[in-house]
C-alpha cells in the first residue's frame, strides 16, 4: 500500500497569518504524525519509552519553533519524506548533544546533508520505498484508526449506542484468531440481545468508524481528488 501524501493544505496552513488556522493545521499534523514519529524514534533509535516521548515532543516543539513545517516545499518531494528527514536530523543532533554532555567536552554538531548553518533541515531527502518509510506509513495508519476509534467511543459513551460500541469492541477490536472469534449468537447471549440486533449494531459501528476515519482524512486533504486517493490507499476502496 502506498502511504498517502500529506496534504499541502495542512502544510501550507501552518504558515497562515491566521493564528487560528495555523493552530488547527499544526494540531492536525501533530495528531496524524505523533504516533509514527514516536514509534520511529523507538525502533530506529532504540529509545526507551520516556526518551522516545521526550524526543517526539521535542521534535514537534522544535519544528514549530524553528519553522521547519512552514518551510516545507511540495516541489521538493513528499511531506512525509521531509518530515522523516527532519526527524532523523533532529534526533541525530540530540543524540550527539547527549553524548557531548556525557563526555563533558565539545563536539561539533555534524551538519547532515541538507541542513543549514544552524543545523536546521533544508533539503533533506529520504529515498522512497525504504522499510523505514513503510513502517512510518503503517504507524500513521495505526494512529489514524486509533484516533477514529477513540472518537467513536466518545460519541457512543452514555448514549443508546454504547452497546453498539461494546459489541464492536468485543467482535472487531479485540485480537482473536478466526477460530476463536465469538459468534453473533454468543454476543447476543452475552449482551441479552436478539442476534439481528447484534448484526445491526455491528454494522452501525463499522459504518460510523469508516465515516470517522474518512472525516479525519478529509481534514488533512486539500481537494476531493486527494481525499479519494488517500481513502483508496488507506481503505483499499473508493469512499462512498
Amino acid at each position: 500500500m502506498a502511504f498517502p501524501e500529506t496534504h499541502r493544505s495542512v502544510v501550507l496552513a501552518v504558515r497562515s497569518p491566521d493564528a487560528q488556522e495555523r493552530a488547527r493545521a499544526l494540531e492536525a499534523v501533530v495528531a496524524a504524525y505523533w504516533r509514527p514519529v514516536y514509534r520511529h524514534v523507538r525502533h530506529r533509535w532504540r529509545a526507551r519509552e520516556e526518551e522516545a516521548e521526550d524526543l517526539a515532543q521535542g521534535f514537534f516543539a522544535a519544528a514549530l519553533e524553528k519553522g521547519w513545517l512552514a518551510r516545507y516545499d511540495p516541489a521538493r518531494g513528499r511531506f512525509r519524506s521531509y518530515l522523516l528527514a527532519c526527524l532523523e536530523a533532529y534526533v541525530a543532533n540530540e543524540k550527539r548533544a547527549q553524548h557531548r554532555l556525557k563526555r563533558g567536552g565539545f563536539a561539533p554538531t555534524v551538519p547532515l546533508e541538507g541542513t543549514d548553518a544552524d543545523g536546521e533541515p533544508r533539503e533533506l531527502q529520504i529515498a522512497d520505498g525504504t522499510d523505514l518509510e513503510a513502517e512510518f506509513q503503517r504507524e500513521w495508519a495505526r494512529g489514524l484508526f486509533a484516533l477514529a476509534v477513540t472518537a467513536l467511543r466518545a460519541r457512543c459513551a452514555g448514549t443508546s449506542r454504547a452497546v453498539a460500541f461494546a459489541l464492536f469492541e468485543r467482535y472487531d477490536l479485540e485480537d482473536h484468531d478466526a477460530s476463536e472469534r465469538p459468534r453473533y449468537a454468543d454476543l447476543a447471549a452475552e449482551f441479552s440481545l436478539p442476534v439481528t440486533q447484534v448484526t445491526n449494531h455491528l454494522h452501525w459501528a463499522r459504518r460510523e468508524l469508516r465515516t470517522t476515519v474518512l472525516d479525519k482524512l478529509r481534514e488533512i486533504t486539500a481537494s476531493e481528488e486527494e481525499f479519494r486517493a488517500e481513502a483508496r490507499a488507506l481503505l483499499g476502496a473508493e469512499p462512498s
Partner: protein
Amino acid sequence: MKTPSDGALDRLRQVTQWPDLTGTRYELRGEVARGGMGVVYVARDRELERDVALKVIAVEAADAETAERLRREARTIARLEHPGIVPVHDVGTLPDGRVFYAMKLVSGKRLDELVGGGLPLRERVRLLLRICEPVAFAHAHGVIHRDLKPENVMVGPFGEVLVMDWGIAKHREEAPSAGAAAARPAAPDATAHGTIVGTPAYMAPEQARGDIEQVDARSDVYALGAILYFMLTGRAPGRAEASPEAPTRTWVGPRAPRVPGIQPPREAAPELPRALEAICLKALAHEREERYPGVTQLADDLGRFLEGERVSAYPEGLLGRARRLSSRHRTPILLVLAYVVMRMVLLLVARV
C-alpha cells in the same frame, strides 16, 4: 484507546468496508479474496449453522450490469450440479442494494500455487483430467466457461478439483448481445464496462479477438491446453513472438505440431514425452478447427497417454511406437526376454 496491533489494524481496515448483512441469515467473519467484480467473504449461515463463502459485488463495481452478471453467474452454477463445480446455496440483495450469493466454502490451494510444489508429471496429467470433467459437464449443459486458468481452479486436500468463477460463462442458447456483449473484450486483456473478462495467456485467439460468435467449447479446450502448458512448463503460453511467417498448419510426420507464437513445451522442459507435448499443442492450435473438437476428446487423449496407448495428437513412427510399447509392456517383455535368455543358456549347456 490502546493502539491497534498489526492484526487489529488490518481487521479494522477490512471491517470498515464490510457490507451490511442486516436482515440476512449471514454473519461476516472475514475477507477471503477481492477481484474486479466482487469480494468473497467467509460468513456464518445462522440458519444452517455452517460457514459459507459469500460473494458480494464490490462497492466500486456496483451497477445494474454487474448485478445482473452476478445473478447470471449464480444461476449458471446452480444449474450445473457437479462435484467439480462449487454449489450455490442462495442469492439475495443486501440492504444497500448490492447483489450477493452464498456458495459452499471450499478449502484447498489454487492450481497455480500447487503446481509450483513440484508434482510428479503423471499426477499433473491426472489433475488436468479432473479439471476436464466439470468443464465437459458444463459443455454438455450448454455452458462455456470462457475464463479457465490456474487461478480459477481449486484443488482440495484429497486432490478433488473445483472449477471456480463462472462470471463470464456463455450459454449456448444466448444471443451474443446482452451478457455476451458484456464479456466482449476490446483487446486481449481489456475490460468491458470496467470488468476484467479474461486472461490473455489462457484465452483462445477467437476470444481474444472479441469474436464472440466463434467462441464455443473449443475455446475452453484452448484454455485447458494453456493450463496443461502451465502445468508442464511452469509458465503460461504466450503468443508475443508470433510472426506472419510462422507456419499455421500443424505438423507432417512424427513430430509435435508447431503452433505459431508458442514455444513448444519440450524446449522449456526437454524431458517431457513427445506425445504429451503434442496433446498440449493440439489443444492450443490457433485455428479452432485444428483443436480437439471437445473436452471429452482431449480427456480421452490424456487418458490414453496415461495408459501408455497411442494418442491421436501424435502420429508416432516405428521407433516411437516400439519405445511406447516397450515402456507400456515392460514386465511381460522382460519376462519373455528372461525366458529366451534362459532357454539359450540351457541349450548351450546341453551342447557342451
